[in-house]
């Protein structure tokens, strides 16, 4: 993991001090709310329905146990004993008092964390693959590049007042767990024909009101030019992105308006003028950062673990959890463990202080001190010995963290919705809870296979509904909650937007309708065919019929 040196530490420390001053000026009345708002937003502090909400950055979703323990401590001391993990691998506190926030940020800075640029029209926290450094699929660990981007974008003097927020994601695997095609910039590390590793640069994807699967503007960018190329894209966007209408201000609208070719030309022109300047980091700095992400010292182990085999045979619950929640590790004898934050009937992405501490302890003991946050609002222990899986599972179970549903129908992404969010049309969480209860039976879930349900409480699409196999969008109809269903979306390497299938359903109807969809799929599927593939084969027509069958 990256560790701050004195420079990183000083910058975060300076920021906390600056924010403390800003809060003092607000509390004394020297700053009006209008003046203070942009300042607090730049530090991730929103005013939500019930209270302030503080969003803390978890750079590319990587945490140490010490950091996770600090997050738990903050939840207990300053909040109401829990926190919420988001689709951007960040964490949110729902109840902090303004007067406490400088102290919270102080506490975070002691574990090399901050809330810088978790809001506002600037470059936000960079996200990545939660399996980075652990999966055999990747070409190299993408996180050094994420850290390089984090540093470059932090307090960027030119790009802190962009037309709109700006999100960057990086992946290095063919299997895309970072949703790079629905980001303002998606970067995919891959090998060129000559064997050189570089970035595919995807620009102008995004969800929200105008969902777009981002086009590739450059097939291959040599790694060493990453920052100058990013700077060129951002400069074109900063100068020419629309500022007259906030719904048309994201870079995707500019790319669309200019056309991909014209946009590419502008970027390349700008890049030609700045590449080779001081923007591109020297090799020594890239290497310095890369060293922090060197693989941990794995033990040499056989592929299979005898004790694991035995436990699988003797405990069906454990066997299921291993099947569903663990993934292949690049190192023989190790596994990647997914920790579901989606207990049946629970709030997707919420974790209590005790749960965070339990996960931190497990990471320290069994996973080289590392935890990851996934964009699907779960946690992940990246490097667990197969011999230790049973012990890990046993502890997870004690903390209600062993729900065996990763990738299944009850592993639902849901935004906070009207239970917390001031922008919401409808609630999202209760729909997630009811769907998860409807499919509570784990045999049924596992038999159904991968079904990604994603729920947003308004068109801002924080719940990624456009790219759900089943997407659900809350809409307000004369003060009543209605839900619009989209089908066939995907955020993975086969990214595509779901089709809107018809009129909205009332909150009373929507769960039954989802069940009918799933039943229809079960009746029609071929052997081993996923919901999404069956939908692609059969088309929206029959699914639509099933959805509205009772209406």
């Amino acid at each position, binding site marked *: 993991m990256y560790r701050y040196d004195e420079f990183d530490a000083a910058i975060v420390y300076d920021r906390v001090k600056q924010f403390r001053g800003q809060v003092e000026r607000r509390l*004394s*009345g020297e700053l*009006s*709310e*209008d003046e203070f708002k942009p300042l607090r937003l730049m530090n991730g502090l929103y005013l939500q329905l*019930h209270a302030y909400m503080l969003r803390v950055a978890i750079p590319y979703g990587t945490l140490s146990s010490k950091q996770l323990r600090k997050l738990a401590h903050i939840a207990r001391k300053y909040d109401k004993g829990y926190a919420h993990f988001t689709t951007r691998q960040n964490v949110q506190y729902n109840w902090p008092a303004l*007067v406490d926030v400088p102290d919270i940020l102080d506490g975070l800075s002691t574990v090399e964390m901050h809330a810088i640029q978790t809001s506002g029209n600037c470059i936000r926290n960079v996200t990545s693959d939660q399996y980075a450094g652990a999966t055999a699929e990747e070409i190299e660990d993408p996180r050094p590049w994420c850290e390089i981007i984090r540093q470059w974008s932090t307090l960027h003097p030119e790009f802190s007042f962009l037309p709109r927020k700006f999100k960057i994601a990086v992946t290095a695997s063919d299997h895309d767990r970072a949703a790079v095609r629905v980001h303002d910039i998606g970067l995919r590390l891959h090998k060129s024909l000559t064997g050189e590793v570089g970035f595919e640069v995807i620009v102008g994807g995004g969800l929200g009101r105008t969902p777009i699967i981002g086009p590739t503007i450059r097939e291959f960018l040599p790694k060493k030019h990453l920052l100058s190329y990013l700077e060129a894209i951002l400069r074109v966007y900063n100068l020419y992105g629309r500022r007259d209408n906030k719904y048309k201000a994201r870079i995707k609208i500019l790319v669309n308006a200019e056309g991909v070719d014209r946009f590419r030309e502008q970027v390349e022109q700008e890049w030609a003028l700045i590449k080779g300047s001081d923007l591109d980091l020297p090799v020594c700095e890239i290497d310095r950062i890369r060293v922090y992400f060197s693989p941990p010292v794995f033990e040499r182990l056989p592929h299979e673990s005898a004790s694991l085999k035995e436990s699988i045979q003797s405990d069906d619950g454990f066997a299921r959890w291993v099947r569903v929640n663990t993934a292949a590790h690049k190192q023989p004898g190790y596994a990647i463990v997914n920790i579901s934050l989606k207990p049946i009937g629970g709030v997707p992405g919420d974790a209590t202080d005790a749960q965070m501490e339990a996960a931190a302890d497990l990471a320290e003991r069994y996973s080289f001190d590392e935890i990851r946050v996934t964009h699907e609002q779960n946690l992940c222990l990246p490097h667990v010995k197969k011999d230790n899986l049973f012990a890990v599972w046993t502890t997870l179970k004690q903390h209600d963290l062993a729900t065996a549903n990763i990738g299944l129908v009850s592993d639902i992404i849901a935004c906070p919705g009207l239970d917390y969010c001031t922008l919401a049309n409808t609630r999202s969480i*209760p729909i997630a809870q009811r769907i998860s209860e409807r499919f509570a039976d784990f045999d049924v879930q596992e038999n159904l296979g991968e079904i990604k349900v994603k729920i947003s409480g308004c068109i801002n699409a924080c719940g990624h509904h456009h790219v759900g196999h089943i997407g659900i969008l809350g809409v307000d109809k004369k*003060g009543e909650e209605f839900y619009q269903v989209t089908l066939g979306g995907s955020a993975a390497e086969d990214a595509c937007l779901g089709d809107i299938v018809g009129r909205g359903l009332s909150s009373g109807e929507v769960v039954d309708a989802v069940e009918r969809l799933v039943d229809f799929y079960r009746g029609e599927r071929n052997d081993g065919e996923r919901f999404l593939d069956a939908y692609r084969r059969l088309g929206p027509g029959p699914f639509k019929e099933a959805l509205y069958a009772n209406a």
Partner: protein
Amino acid sequence: MKAVTANRLADGRVVYLAPDGAWTERLVNAAIFENIEAENALASLGASAIEFADAYLIEVHTDGYPSGREALRETIRNSGPTIRTDLGKQAENG
């Protein structure tokens, strides 16, 4: 009928303007205004006040419960998250 609501500056708690001009945490204790009076009450709050942030008007019934299009939103603000009835004002009201 209307009431004036805001979030308290120091801790963000939902508050309502009371008849005595102070802020109360309980909507039942809020001042209920006719539309025009409500606009005046809101306008007279002053922009850089140090007790509250983001003041606006909500529609309420004469009995003080939220009404109109935003009734659900304002009910949730006044009580707490519907999925965590152990939190927010609903938890304190007993």
